[in-house]
């Protein structure tokens, strides 16, 4: 889907700054807790990494940007937990207001935690360990790669309505297969619990002028694209 998360090539962000060598991993204590809680939330709500990315992708501009990277994780965690019926809508806000001394009505919490919402959750102490040892996204498949190294391919000019890992800036553009990567779970279906559809992934090399026009600086971009995103060029 089109959304704030698909940032490649967009304008209006201002200049980049030199990196700080001494930057802490978590600039504020809540950020580390939000990171861990989001990973746990993905699991206890019965979601997967692709559904997590799709939750981020659906945030509005303010929810995505205003509180930075861990703010968008936190907002995506809330979305997964409410959609997974683990938390009621508004429950986090109400509790946060109560924590700062406001007298608030708690939203009706009719939700318990349905087993179906967290099929693999397991006991809480095992959630991070389970995440560490999860099967991951790579799969072995029987089908031969449809495209070969050196072959010219085109990223389809499509606008998938749901989750996708096909960035807008390469759609409709042609490039050359540089590497055939291991087959992996297809995010576009996996994010929506419509199956793994594992398929080959290709690192496709695009020339900067193909992407950005004749006036562009000369360089190349490689983008790691699932087989379903690609077509042969005529």
């Amino acid at each position: 889907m089109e959304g704030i998360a698909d940032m490649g090539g967009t304008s209006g962000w201002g200049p980049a700054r030199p990196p700080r060598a001494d930057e802490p991993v978590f600039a504020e204590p809540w950020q580390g807790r939000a990171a861990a809680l989001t990973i746990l939330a993905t699991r206890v709500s019965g979601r997967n990494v692709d559904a997590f990315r799709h939750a981020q992708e659906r945030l509005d501009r303010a929810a995505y940007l205003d509180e930075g990277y861990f703010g968008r994780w936190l907002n995506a965690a809330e979305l997964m937990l409410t959609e997974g019926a683990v938390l009621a809508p508004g429950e986090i806000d109400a509790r946060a207001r109560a924590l700062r001394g406001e007298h608030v009505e708690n939203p009706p919490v009719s939700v318990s935690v349905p087993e179906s919402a967290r099929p693999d959750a397991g006991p809480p102490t095992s959630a991070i360990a389970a995440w560490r040892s999860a099967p991951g996204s790579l799969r072995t498949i029987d089908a031969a790669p449809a495209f070969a190294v050196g072959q010219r391919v085109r990223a389809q000019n499509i606008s998938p309505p749901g989750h996708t890992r096909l960035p807008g800036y390469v759609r409709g553009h042609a490039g050359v297969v540089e590497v055939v990567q291991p087959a992996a779970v297809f995010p576009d279906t996996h994010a929506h619990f419509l199956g793994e559809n594992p398929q080959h992934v290709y690192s496709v090399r695009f020339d900067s002028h193909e992407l950005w026009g004749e006036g562009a600086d000369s360089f190349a971009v490689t983008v790691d694209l699932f087989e379903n995103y690609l077509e042969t060029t005529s």
Partner: protein
Amino acid sequence: MTTSSESGEAPSAALRTEALEQLLTERGLIDSEIVDAFITNYETNVGPLNGAKVVAKAWTDPEYRRRLLADGTSAIKELGFGGPQGEHIVVVENTPTTHNVVVCTLCSCYPWPVLGLPPGWYKDPVYRARVVKEPRTVLSEMGLDLGDDVHITVRDSTSEVRWLVLPERPAGTEHLTEEELVPLVTRDAMVGVAKAAAA
């Protein structure tokens, strides 16, 4: 309890994080000790020092370097590094005339087992939006000026493939041992927004 803080203003992310932790704990779904352990792990154990050890070994051991470029995931695992966000790591080499720089335009995918969690600039819309369109300018703004004769390849991490840059070994370090080289290998050089420099 105060009443002065009552307002329509949305609670801060810090407060909402605290609320979320309480709610999930009360439901028996999480354990705060697990949250603490995650933070400690990424603050102290899993960070760019891991990647620096990989690079320093590659600089001093030609056979390891060959294995690393041929199969990054396996060669990195030889040093004990692997895990979430590192299922398939591809290592690309920077030279005086070819320069790789890594980004994730769609979120902030990053090779956690060797570099830890991504730094602020990597997650910044400025970097995500612009480095695929004008990498030479962005790198210059970040402090790395590359000559016009250097071929730049930007690696956009849009699948579960994770990219690690093997920087050039700095001139004048021929006498240093593997252990002495480790501190010269920076996170920024392993993403490709800087070069490794002699101390």
